[in-house]
């Protein structure tokens, strides 16, 4: 989950998010380099250290054409690499459905049995000591760790959006449409997210909690719920 006044990304819990964080750091360095150069040139200009009697500036024209082109390539290549990585065909182990309602999520696990449950936010007055306000839910979405998961996201009434920042997932939940996304959790843990499309009075109060556990605990949990 995010800490208060947190500026940066949460630690990545999926391979795609790791790549996105790396790319962000790279892009930020490029942006910092450009800003530094501009600031430097601006300072020189203000101190009247730059020559202003140039008529034919072939060399500098060449430099400030080639250099930006190189910068753009440096940005585009990793960006496209990640874009294509996100679209890779991965045969999932499990298909889960998340259905947005006003104002809770329903999770369905129907590969074998018809397992379905609602996930409501835990009201603050019922929150146990030490738990996270406005983030905890009564029933978490449990997934086996290190397994490719296919998520099918839809909604029952209005637009919602299913987002879990640490997994690098945000997908709109649209009534009448099934949106597919996928992720792999690299480690066990509890991952939080919040509804990311305005959906009425309690839009801020329908969080998402994904619990990633080893396969045997997942199987035990799903057997318990199916019985």
């Amino acid at each position, binding site marked *: 989950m995010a800490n208060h006044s947190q500026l940066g990304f949460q630690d990545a819990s999926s391979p795609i998010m790791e790549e996105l964080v790396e790319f962000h750091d790279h892009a930020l360095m490029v942006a910092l380099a450009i800003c530094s150069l501009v600031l430097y040139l601006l300072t020189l200009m203000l101190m009247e250290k730059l020559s202003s009697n140039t008529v034919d500036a072939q060399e500098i024209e060449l430099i400030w054409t080639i250099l930006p082109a190189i910068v753009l390539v440096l940005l585009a290549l990793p960006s496209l690499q990640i874009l294509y990585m996100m679209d890779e065909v991965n045969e999932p182990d499990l*298909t889960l459905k998340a259905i947005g309602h006003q104002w809770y999520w329903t999770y369905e696990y129907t590969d074998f049995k018809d397992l379905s449950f609602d996930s409501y936010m835990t009201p603050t007055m019922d929150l146990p000591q030490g738990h996270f306000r406005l983030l905890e839910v009564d029933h978490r979405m449990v997934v086996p760790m290190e397994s490719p998961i296919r998520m099918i996201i839809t909604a029952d009434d209005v637009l919602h959006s299913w987002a879990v920042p640490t997994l690098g997932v945000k997908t709109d939940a649209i009534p009448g449409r*099934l*949106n597919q996304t996928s992720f792999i959790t690299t480690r066990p843990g509890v991952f939080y997210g919040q509804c990311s499309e305005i959906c009425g009075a309690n839009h801020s109060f329908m969080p998402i909690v994904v619990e990633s556990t080893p396969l045997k605990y997942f199987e035990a949990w799903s057997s318990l719920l199916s019985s």
Partner: protein
Amino acid sequence: MVCLCTASGAVISGGALGGASRWFRRESGSGGESHFDGNCDAMAEDIRTKLEHYKTAPFDSRFPNQNQTRNCWQNYLDFHRCEKAMAAKGADATPCQWYYRVYKSICPMSWVTTWDEYREEGTFPGKI
């Protein structure tokens, strides 16, 4: 393309089991004999094996993008068409279970319930 043998020996081919996008059509002129008979038992075994090892709906190249609505709809239709066709021929409907498993995995339960009700009422918008 998948061949499915009926009790009468005529061959019904097609289906999405191999990723093809045709639904069932009869091979013309197959009559009471077919040179696919030898393959049919092997195919039926393949389907059973696939069903036994079913984990979840596999990648379907007909629906490669984010929007999987049509995938759900198509498999729901294919299952009911398969059941109807097999019942009409008096054949084993076990291979149809593939479509059932796939639509069960992908389609929200509420959608399936609604469509089942429409079918019972006779107001289902799809052609089965």
